[in-house]
Each structure stands twice: as structure tokens, then as C-alpha cells.
């Protein structure tokens, strides 16, 4: 059982909880369990092709899963998974 921390703007889609405990042996399975339990949350994390939206970062502990095994990153009992938005920008309109 892992705990997924829900960022404040998304808590309204998970019965106003700040975290949800889910079963899953990988990060992908854990997130699927989360969005199965709270289907209204799904469109906020995934695009129409079922891929994580580009502004969504997933951490397990302090590690970004993009630098681990992405969705296949293993999850152990007691792990904490965080959903953290990616924020950047600026006035430059071209590279």
C-alpha cells in the first residue's frame, strides 16, 4: 500500500482528501488504482491518448520517475508518491 499525495487544486476530485492510499506494485499501477477509484481525476492527469500530461511530474519519495523506470518504477509498502506540476515559462516566444 502506497500513499499518493494530492496537490491542493485536485483534492476536489478525490473527496477533498490530501492523500489517498492505493494498492499497486508499480507507479503506473498505483496511479491506475487512484484514477479507477476517482475517475473524475483522470482527465486532469492524462490526455486523450492516455499519456500523463506534460505538466504532470510524478515523484516517488524525492525521485522523479522519469529518471527511474517511469510507470514501471516499483512501489513498496509505505512509499509516498507525489503529483507535482511542472511550472515554467517566460516572455521569449522562440528558442
Amino acid at each position, binding site marked *: 500500500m502506497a500513499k499518493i*499525495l494530492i*496537490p*491542493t*487544486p*485536485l*483534492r476536489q476530485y478525490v473527496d477533498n482528501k*490530501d492523500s489517498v492510499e492505493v494498492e499497486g506494485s508499480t507507479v503506473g499501477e498505483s496511479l491506475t488504482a487512484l484514477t479507477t477509484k476517482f475517475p473524475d481525476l483522470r*482527465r*486532469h492527469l492524462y*490526455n486523450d491518448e492516455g499519456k500523463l*500530461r*506534460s*505538466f504532470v*511530474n510524478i*515523484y516517488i519519495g*524525492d525521485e*522523479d520517475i522519469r529518471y527511474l523506470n517511469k510507470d514501471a518504477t516499483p512501489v513498496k509498502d509505505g512509499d509516498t508518491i*507525489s503529483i*507535482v*506540476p*511542472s*511550472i*515554467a*515559462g*517566460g*516572455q*521569449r*516566444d*522562440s528558442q
Partner: protein
Amino acid sequence: MITIENDPWQEMVRHAESTFPKECCGVMVGAEQLVRRAVALPNVYDGPQEDFFVMDPKDLQRVDEEARKGGEQVLGVYHSHPNCDAYFSKRDLEHSCPWFSYLVLSVRSGKFDHANSYRCDYDQTQADKEELVVAAHRG
């Protein structure tokens, strides 16, 4: 609509002016679309910061955790546009997150000029200006 109390508003203006000519960034914290605190964060972009900013996700995670412990939430993010209007640029849109309000502060020659707030869509293709209210100073 987003409403910002006077103190965090002044803090964001000072932050934007003090980092000029580089872009600053930070987070707006409060509840029910009322911003009570501004949290300045470092711009961690490793290129020229005069026209781009990147927030460290770990900084954002930390602020979110602190906010939730205090019964508050992250309502939005802010950044500055040095010597440029407070519009929502193509790069802003490409890197936007629809969960938050985006306050953009225009700073010209080191002095605050004007600001606008935006909400963007999930496809990162459109941003709409939202009403921005700066609450009068209390007391």
C-alpha cells in the same frame, strides 16, 4: 477571478523589481481564490533568465506541503516579464498548468508597470485573462 491581499501583492512587485532584468517566479498561497501569501522561489533555469524561468518542482512540492499543513492551498504562480507587457506568451502557454492562476507582472526599467492574471486550458493552447483584484490594505 483572483483576489490578492495587499501584502503579498507588494511582495510580488518587490520581487519582480529586485530580480530585474531577470524573470522572477513564485507561488501564491491562500484559500477560496483569496491570496494571503506570496512565496518567492528561485528561478532555476540554467540559461539566460532575462526571458525565461523554471520552477524547481521540489520547491513547489515543499510549498504545497507547507500550505496543506496550514489549511491553505496553492492558488497560483507568478512570474515577471522584464521590459515587456504582462501578456501570456507562447512559451508561457507551452509550459502552463491549468490547475493554477498565472499572474504575470510587467517590469519596465526596473519598476513595476502592470500585471494580468490568466487561466489556461488543458491542451496548453489557450489562456484567458481572469479578473484580478488587489484588496485594499487592512487596518
